[in-house]
């Protein structure tokens, strides 16, 4: 169960970080479109830097770009696939 908790923890933290960069926290649903939230690649790099630091994981930014995330859910999936949980 601790593992599941970690996943929840990192997901919530990712959303918190993204909310600090512009959008309101309650706009950040899994289905929400990055384009509509005006979240761009610079925001994703910033988010990744904080997550890497706090959770001691490494996020491959080149791969993040290749996967062309379009929604908040896509971002969370990429973070999870890099060991965030």
């Amino acid at each position: 169960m601790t593992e599941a908790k970690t996943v929840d923890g990192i997901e919530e933290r990712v959303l918190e970080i993204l909310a600090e960069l512009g959008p309101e926290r309650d706009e950040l649903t899994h289905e929400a479109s990055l384009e509509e939230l005006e979240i761009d690649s610079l925001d994703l790099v910033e988010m990744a830097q904080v997550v890497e630091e706090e959770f001691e994981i490494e996020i491959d930014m080149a791969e993040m770009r290749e996967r062309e995330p379009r929604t908040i859910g896509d971002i969370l999936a990429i973070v999870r696939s890099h060991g965030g949980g």
Partner: protein
Amino acid sequence: MAAADGRHRGEGRGERVVITGIGMVTPLGNDVDTLLRRWLEGEVAIADGLARCEEFVPREHVSKKEAHRSDRYVQLALAASRLAWEDAGWGDGPPVEAAEVGCVVGTGFGALATMETQHDVCRDAGARRVSPLAAPMIMHSAAVGAVAIAGGLEGPAHGVSSACATGADAVGTALRAIQAGDAEAMVAVGADACQTELAIVASANMGATSPSGVSRPFDARRDGFVIGEGAGALVLERADVAERRGARIHGELLGFGATCDAHHLTMPEPSGATAARAVSRALADAGAAPEDVAYVNAHGTSTPFNDRAETNAIKRALGPVAAEVPVSSTKSVIGHLIGAAGVVEAAVTLAAMEAGVAPPTVGYEEPEPGLDLDYVPNRPGRLRPTPGRPLALSNSFGFGGHNAVLCLAAGGGGR
């Protein structure tokens, strides 16, 4: 009135250009009327050797995302710009086609604070932690892009940087863009926020800033300038465009003159000859003569060298009129706003002309031999009577010998 004799037309340049919007963030308030009122009351915004914009709350002017993505000087530039186009009655966007509106946004120091912070991150936390925003925040055109995006300005947009003459050069460059037919309206902005530890000690070590922490331009005891921060923005419009939309016209930008001493890295050329040429060029550009000058808003930094060279320049350029015209320095109350100084000072000059008053050089007490103009000590004075429409000059001189002078008149004039 300019139209009556055609002398104040910007001879040979064609288009008349008017000022329809004024915005600013300064250590003495965030609009020009407040700044002028507090200046006339003799209020000084300097504390502990610095003049800060204590009343500036960034999030009242910029979004969360803009705040996160911009250095403080860009936030100041955005705030002043928004206040200026709001003042101009622009509503949701420019009143003419977006491609016909551009901006010139100047800064002297740029994003020093961001540069220092990101350098620390790179050294202490490693390359992988340097912000992806560092480059677009540090590049010298950061404020230009930010202002153009905020205003939806699709015309020519670029930066100028000429040390302490930056603001006046921004206004002059914007004037030329309209006169050259590149735009129907321009937003001219100057901004600086360089009260970082590095800038403060660097300026002190070169002997430029005041060890006593007092700005007293033209006084015998002056010992350097006081670092301020802030931003100023002017909306300039081609007169026919402004008149067609029924815009309120604050005043007319009649002339611009710029020269360079080509003399020394920091010191002005002591005779004031090249600075005087900038003054004369601004007057000629306005189709005016020294006898038309009612007030001179001096660069007046409170450094020993500037105030002496500037006095010489005013005497050279204005001849006998120099002995009669009130000359005062806004820096006596708000310190030196660096890249913002020229824009804020041009704006408050216009407001003073509108009010018919020469604002004082606050703190001036002890005369120095040779510095013998009417510096309007401590209490507001009268404008010099002129035969026709009263004109004002706003001087800006910078390290590197940059001289930029604006010639302005209150009201619509030509109508």
